[in-house]
Every structure is written in C-alpha cells, then in structure tokens.
C-alpha cells in the first residue's frame, strides 16, 4: 500500500487554517509535487494537520487510537506524539521536505514492522530508495517557502537562518520563489514598515551566496521541480539600485500593501526573472489574502534575453540592496481590492523585453517628474493625476478611466438623488482606496529611491510628490465624505413620509426603536428603485463579507461613541435624525428620554440572559459543549475555548428583540453535543467569525440588550460599588463614556446614583455599564475593600485636566 517506490507520499490535509491550506496546496502542486500527492483521508498514507486549529488535537487522538497513520503536525509549539513529525510555524518548504523524509521512514518502519529483526537493517532496495530520496533533496532544500505566522518560534527562526537554505545553490542551480511577507505578527509589520537600507534582506534572493536569514518567503514557483533539477531556471531579484543603474531586466519589484489587518494582508509582487539560459520571465504576481482565504494569481511574461549576467556583479558588491516597496497603512481601507493590470500576454515573447525596458524606465520616472503632475483641487483632477501615475507604473489607464467615470457618474448621482448613493458607496470607496494606494505606491517608490544614495535625482522631487499625494488623499477623502453624507438620507425614509419629524418626541422615540428594521428596508427600497443611471449600473460592486460589514458598522459605532464623548451631554441631547450608532445605543442603553433608575427595572430571571448564564455555568462546570436552541436560533457554548457560536448576529435587531422580550423558558432546548457536532461548531467558529464571540463579549452585549438602560430589580442605587477588574474594553461593544465610567468604578467607588452626576453624563450609560460588569462578574464583592478604596480616593481635579481633555480629543479622532 505504501507508495514509497515512487517516492511520492499520499497525504491528506486535515484541520488547517485557510492560509496554511493554501500554502500546502500550492506546495503540493508545485515544488512538492514529486514528494507529496494530496488525496482524500481514506486514500492517504500520511496526514498533515494544524495542531493549533480547533478540533485538531481531538482528531489526532482519534487517528492515533484507530490507526498507525503517520502525520505531520504543524504547530507554534513543539508537539511530540508517536508517529508524528512536528513542523514549527511558519511553514517552510525545507521543513516540509524534511518532514517528508521522516514520515517516509515511519511508513517504511510500519510496513516492515512484522519482519522483526530483519528490519534492523535496511534492505538494499530501501537503501537505494533512501539514497534516491536524499539525492533529490538538495534541490528541494534550496526552495525557500514560508509564510510567517508567528516569528516568535525559536525553531522557526532557526529554520529561516538555516544555512542549508540556499547554501547548496551552485551557480548553475538556482531556484527562486517570490516572497510574501505575512504581517500577522506585529514584529513583521515593524520590519515591513522600516523597509529601507537597513533591511536589504527583504529583497535579497535565495541564490545569494550568503543568503540573508530574515527573508520571509512564499513559494511562488511557476516551474516544475524537474525544471529546477535540470538547472534550467535562474531567477534574479533586482533592487531599486539596479533599476537606477538601468541594469535592465533583472528586476523584481515587490509592492506590498498592508491593510493594517493581520488577517488580510494584500501583497503584490512584480518580478522579472531572467535566466542565463536566455530566458527571461516577468512575473506579475498577485497574491492576496483576504480573511484567511489565500489566492495566488500569477501571470508570466517570458521573452528572450541575453543580458542577465550583470546581476551577479551587482549583487556581490552591493551593500545597499533595496527593493521598491511600500507598506501603506490605512485602517479605513481594509476592504480594498486593488487591481494590477496585466502587462502583457505570456505568448508575446518578442515584445516582452521592450515592455520590461519601458516598465523600468517608467518606474524610475514614476518617482520623479512624470509621476506627479500639478496639484489639483478637485477630485476629478486628482483622479486624472492618479491615472497618469498609475499608467506610469504600468497599470492600465483603461481601468483608471473606468474609475474616473465611476466617480463622475457618482457625482452626478449625488446631485440627482443622494439617497441612491448607498448602492454604490462600497464600490466607490474601494476605487478611491485604489487610487490612494497607487499614489502611495508611487510615493513609496520614490521614498525607497530616496533612501538609496545612488539615486540623487529623485529626492528633489519627493517633497512635491509627498505634497501632491497628501493633497490628493485629502481630496479623495473629501469625495468619500461627500458620499458618506447622504447616509442620513438613506436612513431617513425616502418615501412620502420622509420628512424628518423631530419635534414630536414620542414619535421620534418610536422611530428610534423601529429604525433598526427601517434601515434595511429603506436600503432594500433603494436597491429596488433600479434601474438608475446606466453609468451606475456598470460599476462593479465590491461585495463585503458579513464580517467586513460588521466591522464597518462597529467602526461607525466606535467613532460615533467617541464623538458623543467629545460632545458631552449637550451633543447627546441634541436631537436629530438618529445615526446608526444612536440607534444602537437605544437598544443597548435605552432611550435618553427615559430615566430608567426611577421608573424602570427588570427581573433578569424573565429574560433569555438568565438561561444563557445558567447554561454557560453548567457548560463550564461539566466542561461539555452545550447548545441552546429556541425560536430557530442556535447558541453553542464551547467552554474550553471560552467561545460562543450564535447563528444570529448579535448586532441584529432580531437578537436585540430576543434579549429584550421576556423569555418563555419552555421553548428552549438544551443539549450536550456529541463529538461530531462539536467538531462542526469548532469549524463554524473559525469559518464564521461574525457569529463567533468570546463568552465575555457575548454576555456583555446580551446584558446590554436585555437591560436597555434599566437596572435589575433590587439594585441599591445608593450603595457604593467598585470594579474588581476592568472589562476588556478593546474587545467589547463600546457604549459612550465607557472608559470614563470604568475608571471611576475602578478607582473611585461610588453609587450608581452619584456617578452620572459626578461625571455629568447620562444615567442610561452608567446603568448599561453596571449591567454589563454585573453579568461578567467583574464587580468587587468585598465591602471592606470598597470602603477602603472609597476612603482613600476621591476624584480631584488634576492640573493636567485641560491638557488631558485636549489629548483625549486628539487620540479619539
């Protein structure tokens, strides 16, 4: 059954993160295809599993209890299990190759096990096989293949610094793979951000005789291992310096775009890969990870080339190997999906060299004169500039023209009907982001060039370039705001009754409570109002995943929260058409016109929250995964992960209503789950992050929605209370003044009645906070400690208060 004769091991991928899955599949289909063959679990000889992935440990245990199948275990921490090989994260090709040898030995020993003593020595055939394998190895050992998930692992680092990587490269045997730096680790982001003369290793190549250890690579090999073995392929990386010196075709331009989100790095690299064998390839590669879904698109342009040997001299005497790279952080543009135009078709070999020459010249010029034209004052002109610059960097002007048309048509639409903007807002934002990024890329190219002392002609252009970029970004931002402004119109009913009535408070209150359902309806109506302007219909909408939409909404709430904090009570009391955040606060903190502590209390036992707390406690005590099912909603509590899966968004109005409506205890069904169900929900927690919550965040939001600014029955509002621990506010739904309230409760214990007065904030926010921390069990119960704290600390006005106020305003914006 073993497939040792062919040296190819049949392997199945079990629990695995999307990112590692993509890496492995890429490896199995390219560099590792002579080592492994991916197959189903039933047909596999070996399994590979991400041990850090939920459910993986249980699966490994199950496999080991039922079979002797060897496995490769990927984990951050060392895992020593029988019949398994541990590979430290991040994945590297080298590690996979070594693992292959080890599992091959395991397979061999398993197969030979019945032969007892005879198996102590390898048969001649086996020896031959092993020799064959080891003969194969040096070639593959040279392949550098890794994506950083966590650089903290010592062994992983050792692997990166492994002198074997690249050391076996002879002048004639070289392999290359495109590098992709995963920035999931903060340290990585530092490294990426500080790309400069100090970090040449990021752009060094693997066939460097003295390879730099810090290289973080992702194999992107278009050539088969057989080709590599035949020494047919050399790949070169050329840096900005090389470009400046017009060393022509040996070009590799890495343009990394980091979106500040560790899970969704976008990375683009353009490579020209000339070979001494008169083969030059220009690879335009785009590898994009989005929400752990990795995809690699590679297009290769090959052409004849005879001028690649200069590269070696450049490399050997160069101490300033620089890549043209930029890391453009912009937290507001996480959703962007930039597009790089394909430069040429692969079959147009004869034209490719010219294209490359032009590309290089344009790249040089991209940081200089042609990159930036005169500063413009309008968004339209800014787009024109962007188009010019992008075309200089090789991006199709056609795409830009389309973008420009989109923006112009949107401008027209704003004038015609502001309410319809919502339909295209995501698409436009994305377009703006593209232009901003492209401009930033051009600037960064110039920045990197400026770091290179050899490029003296570029720095003088940098201030202007920088100014232009800043101005264009501002202009683009203004346009974006123009798009955003009509949001209120969208929220307000657009129909005949669209006139906002703000005088009648009762009606307003009703509208506020109903608004959550009104918004989607209005948006749906807006959607149905098509057909619209034809130009609008041509705009490709960038669809946001549920998680992305959720993040966007949460971000809105957060910003609005900070806005209210800044405005104080006056701002909060100034009634107007409710924003999304205000609508949400009506659900989480109650309506501002009601004084809950005087008029309204609630009995927690009547609500779903009490049942939820009971089931969570039961799950914790029994350490069993439990499921609540009621009204078609599923809530699964996974106590070991401290996670909750809920198939209904807790940010939906439906969930808010469930929490706020007295609960029929009879309607609920509670189950302990079996192993297959547990596995399913563990998987769902990973696959549906929008439905996955920490127990703390789930309880926090549920308690806010249940109380809606009311206090539990029997609460003594005059008793001093104190926080034992701060809630983990960076991971909880934010309500206005939450930080301030937490600080007072923590350091200056006082009564619920007094704190709103002292802080001059609305009572409903204090009540909501009290409910949240009460549910999470974060209140101090030791009266002695509370008294001690109360006597020690009183809020005093510090001399820094004015400065702190200004500082807080600054950092909240």
């Amino acid at each position, binding site marked *: 059954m073993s497939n040792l004769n062919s040296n190819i091991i049949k392997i199945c991928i079990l629990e695995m993160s999307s990112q590692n899955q993509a890496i492995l599949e890429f490896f199995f289909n390219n560099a590792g295809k002579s080592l492994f063959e991916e197959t189903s679990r039933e047909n596999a000889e070996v399994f590979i599993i991400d041990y850090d992935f939920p459910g993986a440990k249980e699966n490994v245990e199950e496999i080991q209890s039922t079979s002797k199948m060897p496995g490769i275990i990927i984990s951050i921490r060392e895992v020593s299990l029988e019949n398994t090989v541990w590979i430290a994260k991040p994945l590297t090709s080298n590690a996979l190759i070594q693992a292959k040898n080890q599992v091959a030995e395991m397979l061999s020993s398993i197969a030979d096990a019945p032969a007892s003593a005879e198996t102590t020595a390898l048969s001649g055939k086996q020896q031959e096989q092993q020799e064959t394998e080891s003969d194969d190895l040096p070639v593959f050992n040279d392949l550098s293949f890794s994506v950083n998930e966590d650089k903290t692992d010592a062994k992983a680092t050792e692997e990166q610094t492994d002198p074997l990587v690249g050391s076996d490269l002879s002048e004639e045997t070289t392999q290359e793979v495109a590098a992709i730096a995963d920035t999931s680790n903060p340290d990585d982001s530092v490294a990426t951000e500080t790309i400069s003369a100090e970090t040449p290793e990021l752009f060094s190549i693997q066939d460097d005789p003295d390879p730099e250890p810090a290289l973080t690579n992702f194999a992107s090999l278009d050539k088969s291992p057989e080709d590599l073995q035949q020494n047919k392929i050399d790949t070169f990386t050329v840096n900005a310096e090389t470009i400046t010196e017009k060393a022509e075709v040996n070009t590799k331009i890495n343009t990394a775009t980091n979106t500040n989100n560790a899970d969704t790095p976008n990375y683009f690299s353009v490579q020209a890969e000339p070979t001494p064998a008169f083969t030059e390839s220009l690879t335009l590669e785009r590898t994009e990870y989005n929400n752990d879904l990795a995809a690699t698109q590679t297009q290769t342009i090959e052409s004849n080339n005879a001028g690649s040997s200069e590269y070696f001299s450049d490399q050997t005497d160069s101490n300033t190997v620089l890549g043209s790279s930029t890391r453009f952080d912009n937290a507001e543009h996480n959703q962007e999906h930039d597009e790089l135009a394909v430069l040429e078709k692969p079959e147009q070999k004869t034209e490719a060299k010219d294209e490359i020459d032009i590309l290089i010249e344009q790249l040089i010029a991209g940081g200089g004169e042609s990159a930036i034209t005169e500063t413009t004052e309008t968004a339209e002109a800014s787009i024109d500039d962007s188009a010019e610059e992008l075309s200089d960097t090789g991006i199709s002007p056609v795409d830009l023209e389309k973008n420009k048309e989109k923006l112009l048509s949107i401008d027209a639409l704003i004038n015609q009907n502001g309410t319809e903007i919502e339909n295209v807002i995501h698409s436009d934002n994305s377009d703006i982001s593209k232009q901003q990024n492209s401009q930033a890329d051009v600037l960064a190219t110039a920045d990197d060039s400026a770091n290179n002392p050899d490029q003296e002609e570029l720095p003088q252009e940098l201030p202007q370039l920088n100014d232009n970029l800043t101005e264009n970004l501002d202009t683009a931002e203004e346009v974006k705001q123009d798009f955003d402004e009509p949001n209120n119109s969208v929220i307000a009913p657009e129909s005949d009754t669209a006139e906002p009535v703000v005088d009648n408070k009762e009606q307003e209150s009703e509208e506020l409570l109903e608004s959550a359902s009104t918004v989607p309806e209005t948006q749906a109506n807006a959607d149905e109002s098509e057909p619209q302007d034809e130009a609008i219909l041509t705009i490709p909408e960038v669809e946001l995943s549920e998680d992305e939409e959720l993040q966007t909404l949460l971000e809105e709430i957060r910003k609005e929260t900070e806005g209210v904090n800044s405005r104080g009570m006056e701002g909060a009391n100034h009634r107007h058409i409710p924003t999304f955040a205000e609508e949400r606060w009506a659900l989480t903190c109650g309506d501002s016109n009601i004084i809950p502590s005087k008029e309204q209390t609630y009995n927690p036992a009547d609500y779903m929250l009490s049942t939820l707390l009971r089931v969570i406690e039961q799950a914790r005590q029994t350490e069993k995964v439990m499921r609540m099912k009621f009204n078609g909603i599923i809530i699964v509590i996974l106590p070991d992960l401290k996670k909750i899966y809920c198939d209904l968004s807790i940010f939906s109005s439906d969930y808010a209503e469930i929490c706020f409506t007295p609960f029929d205890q009879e309607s609920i069904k509670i189950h302990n789950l079996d192993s297959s169900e547990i596995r399913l929900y563990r998987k769902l927690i990973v696959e549906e992050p929008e439905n996955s919550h920490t127990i703390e965040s789930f309880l926090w939001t549920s308690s806010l929605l249940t109380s809606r600014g009311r206090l539990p029955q029997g609460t003594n509002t005059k008793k001093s209370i104190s926080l034992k621990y701060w809630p983990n506010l960076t991971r909880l739904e934010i309500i206005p003044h939450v930080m301030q309230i937490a600080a007072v409760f923590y350091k200056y214990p006082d009564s619920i009645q007094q704190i709103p007065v002292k802080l001059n904030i609305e009572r409903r926010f204090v009540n909501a906070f009290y409910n949240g921390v009460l549910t999470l069990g974060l209140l101090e119960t030791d009266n002695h400690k509370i008294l001690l704290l109360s006597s020690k600390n009183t*809020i005093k006005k510090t001399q820094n208060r004015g400065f702190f106020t200004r500082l807080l305003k600054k950092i909240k914006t």
Partner: protein
Amino acid sequence: MSTEIQHKKIIFTGPVGAGKTTAIQSMSDIPIISTNESATDMTQQRKSETTVAMDYGQIKVGDQERIHLYGTPGQERFDFMWDILTKGALGLILLLDNSRDNPQQDLRFYTQAFKNFIQNGDLVIGVTRSDDIEKPDIDNYRHWIDQLQIRAPVFSIDARERQDVSSLIQALLYTIDPGVTA
C-alpha cells in the same frame, strides 16, 4: 487666556517583541525615532532587530503641546534606561506578549522592575497576541495582577491597531483623572 504649554510623557515597556515600537508607531504623529540594532542574542529568535536604547514618538496636541511616547528597550541588560525614562512620566503602559513562554513571569518581572513608579503612578497593561494565542487568557492576567496586589486595567490589544493603543492611553488618562471630559 493663555494656555500653559504642556509636555508630558508616557512610557511603553515590556519584554522583547511585545510590540512597544509598533504601539508607539501606531500613535505617533511623527516618524518614530528608534535605536534599533541587529539582534545578536536570544532576541534574534524573535525578531531581527531590537531596540537598544529607546523608541521615541510624539502626539501633537494643538500647536505647541506634546505628549512624548517613549519605549524602553526590552532586554533586561538595558534596565538602566528604564529609571531614566520613567522619571516624570504620566504613566506606564506595560505590554506583554501572550505568545511568550511565561507571560506571568514577564508580568512579575516588569511590575517589580517598575515597582517604584507603579506605587505612585498609574499602570495600564496591554496583552498582545492574545487573539492568536488563546491561553493564557485575560482572566489569567487579572488573577495574576491580583496576586501581585496591583490594580491596573488589562486589555487585549493588537499593537498595530491605533484604536487599541489609543484605548490604553485613554484608560491611563481616565485612571489618572476620571473627571476629564473629552
């Protein structure tokens, strides 16, 4: 009415690789000034470069007022810098890396090292990489600081996220003076 020009500083400390430099970078209005050198010791297992003296960033408040952000070097052998940097600081932000072998030991070490400052000043703790590494969790940290008889807010943070780092600073400022209205 003239405003007194204020210049205050906040210190970021914590073990190697906890994200101090990144956190300062997230908040600073100026390109941060770092004294990074290639790591030569055990640090290189975690990152290629490390801070040897300090990191410096700045938040500009208005035209003239500034909040200075200092990051201490992570390695213990640079601890002579710690006292120098913390002198006159508004508060201390301790970043702990959840992926390290023994974060509890790190917590103990740094709270002990800055004991004098913590006794009179305010401390906020940010736990980095807790989104990737689930254990220890925030509850563990809460109990650990309890054991050390320290009272401080503890947040999970991503040092690359400005919002998270901003929350640490906000918590610090509100802890110093909850009466601040902003």
